[in-house]
Structure formats: structure tokens, C-alpha cells
């Protein structure tokens, strides 16, 4: 109990004192996971719409792959991305290993299936007649997709929250492709693991509180958007 109390006090102390190291870590966490989520949305939402509406051979296989990908273990992603990005790996010439960009790549691989899968489910839930109606009103395919995305916006916002939540909380992949390089690739989850192994449990607890606050803050902003127009 005493430890938890000290951890909370430490969290307040770290925030109030504006410890530059802690801010840098928090900021980097937001930057890496935010970028990964954004990329996943830009690619995953269209992919989900196409999978939901398209009719082509292999569609069922793709959908099953996306659904499996929604539970992709971060350490597996970390290992595969590492093997690709190592100096002597196939993409080694890019020199990305142990950089924030490598972490973004790994986190995209985790978030993309989540965003795609939730979008797919959301679009498929719409009444099929809606699609016919929109087409009957003379909409182009582009307009059709946009209108359907708008109709499924609640699911898509849920997809984004799931994607962000998935990557901001993962530690395995970030640790493997980023290391825990101070000031470069140290994020809240990897810093927490490191402080635990250093025996600084109060700092670790403080970082975990910051991580929860960050995840809650972003999710709250997205939830407000999702629930806007709905009477409380």
C-alpha cells in the first residue's frame, strides 16, 4: 500500500516538476503511437471498406488473415520487424533499427489489422439496402464509400481507439526494434519495464500512471467525438 502511495506521489512530483526526461518519454510515446495509428487509419479504413464491399477471389482468405492479425502478438511483430530491419537483414540498408521510425513500423503492423477488422465489421453491419439506395440516387463509387464510412463512423472511431490502445500499451515490439535508448527510443512502456528491473518501483509506478493518463486522455478525446450529438 505504501508503495502504491509513493508511486502516486512520485507521479505527481514528476508531472509538477516538469522533469524533462519524463516529458520527452511521454511525448515520444504520443508521437510514435499517434503516427502509427494515423498511418493505420489512412491505410486500414480503405482496406476495411474494400474488404467489406468487394467481391473477388481470395476475399474470405484475406478477411480471415485480417481477423487473425487483430490478435497479433507484439513480440512476434517485434521479431519479424527486427529480422527485416537488422543491418544485414533485407531492409538493413535503410538503417532504421533502434529508431522511432522502426517502432512506428512495428506498431503499424499491430494497429493496422485492428483498424481494418473493426472497419470491415462496421461496414458489413450496415443495412445492405442502404448501398443500393445510395447507388440508385446516382452516387459515384467514391461517394458511395464516403457515405458508408460516415454511416459506420461509430465503428470506425471504435477501430481507431482499439488501434491506438493496442499500440500505446504494447512493450514487446517496441523493446525489440527500438531498444530503450535514452532520449531516442525510450517510451512509457519500455521505460516502465526498465525502471522495474532497476528496482525503482516508485518511478515505474509513476510512469504507469502517466501511461494510463495518456491513454485515457486520447481515448476520451476520441470518445467525445464519437458520442457527439448524443444527449448525455
Amino acid at each position, binding site marked *: 500500500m505504501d508503495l502504491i502511495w509513493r508511486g502516486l506521489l512520485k507521479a505527481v512530483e514528476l508531472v509538477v516538476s516538469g522533469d524533462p526526461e519524463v516529458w520527452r518519454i511521454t511525448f515520444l510515446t504520443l*508521437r510514435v503511437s*499517434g503516427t502509427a*495509428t*494515423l498511418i493505420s487509419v489512412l491505410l486500414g479504413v480503405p482496406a476495411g471498406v474494400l474488404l467489406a464491399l468487394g467481391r473477388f477471389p481470395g476475399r474470405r482468405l484475406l478477411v480471415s488473415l485480417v481477423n487473425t492479425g487483430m490478435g497479433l502478438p507484439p513480440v512476434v511483430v517485434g521479431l519479424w520487424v527486427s529480422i527485416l530491419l537488422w543491418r544485414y537483414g533485407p531492409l538493413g540498408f535503410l538503417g532504421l533499427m533502434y529508431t522511432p521510425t522502426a517502432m512506428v513500423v512495428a506498431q503499424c503492423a499491430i494497429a493496422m489489422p485492428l483498424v481494418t477488422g473493426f472497419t470491415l465489421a462496421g461496414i458489413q453491419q450496415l443495412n445492405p439496402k442502404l448501398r443500393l439506395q445510395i447507388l440508385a440516387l446516382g452516387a459515384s463509387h467514391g461517394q458511395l464509400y464516403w457515405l458508408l464510412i460516415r454511416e459506420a463512423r461509430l465503428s470506425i472511431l471504435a477501430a481507431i481507439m482499439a488501434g491506438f490502445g493496442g499500440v500505446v500499451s504494447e512493450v514487446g515490439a517496441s523493446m525489440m526494434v527500438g531498444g530503450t535508448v535514452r*532520449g*531516442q527510443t525510450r517510451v512509457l512502456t519500455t521505460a516502465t519495464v526498465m525502471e522495474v528491473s532497476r528496482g525503482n518501483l516508485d518511478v515505474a509506478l509513476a510512469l504507469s500512471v502517466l501511461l494510463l493518463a495518456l491513454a485515457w486522455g486520447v481515448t476520451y478525446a476520441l470518445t467525445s467525438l464519437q458520442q457527439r450529438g448524443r444527449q448525455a
Partner: protein
Amino acid sequence: MVKGSGRWAPLTGMVALLISLALMVGCGLGAPGGETRAAPSKPANPDLILATTTSTQDSGLLDILIPMFEQKTGYQVKPIAVGTGQALAMGERGEADVLLVHAPDAEKSVVEKGAAINRTLVMHNDFLLVGPPNDPAEVKGARTVVEALHRIVVARAVFVSRGDDSGTHKMELSLWKAAGVRPEGGWYQQSGSGMGQTLSIASEKNGYTLTDRATYLAVKKNLRLEIVLEGDGPLLNVYHVMQVNPAKFSKVNAAGARAFLEFVVARETQEVIGKFGVDKYGQALFCPDAAKSEAEVLASNSCSLP
């Protein structure tokens, strides 16, 4: 579903939020570390990967040495703290530039294979046997580490092994070998994790474990573990630095590795190492050895500044 102009807002709002988030955080992307440092002379290839053991990071030593080195030379070090086995494996694949590790026999074989060069003595401390304060296996009465291990086996007391091919794990296995025991059974548990974590597990399970002194001192405030045996000859823990061989791996940052090696064994750095931990733990965590030969270190476990 009702449509209305207000219903556009959530999606566009969300996209705007994400984009602004990415833009906001994107500002920092170009310059890792945020502030620009006044480097004396920027090396051609400033990125340097140091593969090292968990003890140098968990004890806090790297937090002192790396900023010193970066400020002096302009290199940017990426310390990857893993077990010594993994650090050596990174070296053998050319995925690191310089290694700071503590498993002399394994190091020698990496040098023999031609993957590493310029293996140089840096420092040492010692391994300790730690266990629960009530000492159920009565290890405190043992005079040698071999005797201590026998007592643990006889008592079937819990022993937590790193089990991760780290330098400490390699040392532990060689001690069991010296004791003529093949550790097996429910009392012998492998944590598969770093030293700090393994100490926590031993503490929670009322078990014994082998630890390096630096990590034990750094984390002992959270543990119910006491030193039950120390000071026996075989428990010496010796750290070497080596360069990954640039003749074998063309992508290695040879100049940076050379600079780091020279920095670690420089007199000024060795003095810093010799004082590290005195203010916090009342004793130095590492003993600087660059001026000595390995035989001298093995012959006497005394510590004197260069």
C-alpha cells in the same frame, strides 16, 4: 439512421485530431533527443550501437558513461542492454559495433571466430550468492561456493536461475559444474529474465540466486534477500570491451567502436568507474582494471584506482 450536417463532424474531427497529433509530434522527429548538442566535431557516422549486459544499465553506470562519451566525441550511442549471450550473438552477426560484456570464455570464442577484435579488460566486481534472511539451507556457514551449492541441493531449497544465457547464467552453470551437480528438479527454477527481475522472483519465492554485486546493491531495497556467500575466488565477475570486427562486417562503425573502447579504458573514465556508486551505496560497484592484466585481476580481488 438519421443524417444531418452535424454528423460529418466526428470523422473529420477525428482525422484532424490525429493529423494535428502527428504534426505536433512530428516536429521532434528530425532531431532525436530534442535539443541540439554542441558536439566538438561531428563524426562522419555518429550512430554507434553498444550491445551490453543488463547489469551495466540496471546499475546506472551507462547513464554516467554514455553522456560523457557523447559529449566528448559527438557520437550518439544506442545502448542495447541484453544478456551477455545475446550481446555476443549480436556481435557475431555484425548487428552491433562495440560490446561490453562479462563472460570471458564465451568472449574468447567470439574473438577466435574472428567476429570481434581488441578485447580489452575494463573492470570487475564479484558475484554473490543471495538468499532469504532465515537462510533455510544454512548457506551462511559454507566457506566455498561449491559447498554452498551442495547445501542448497541437500536442503532442496529454491534456487532461481537466470536461464537466459547471460554472463551470470554462464557463471552459474560453471559453478554447478565445479560442484559436480546437475541442477534439476522442482527446487531449480529458471526465470528467463534479467537480473533485477530474477532477484525479485527469488525474493518472492524465498529462494537463493546468483547475482552480480552491482545489480544487487541497486535493487536490494525492494528485496527480502541477504548476501549468504561472497568473496570466494571463482565468484569474480570480469567485464571486457571489444570491437566488432570491421574486416568481417563492413557495416560496422569501426571508428566509433574504436573511440568507445579507448574512452572506456582511458584513465579519466576509469576513475569515474571506480567512484561510481560510492555516494549512493557507500561502496564502489565496479573496480576499474584497465591498467591491469587479466591474470593480475584473477590473482587478487583487491581494488585500487589506476
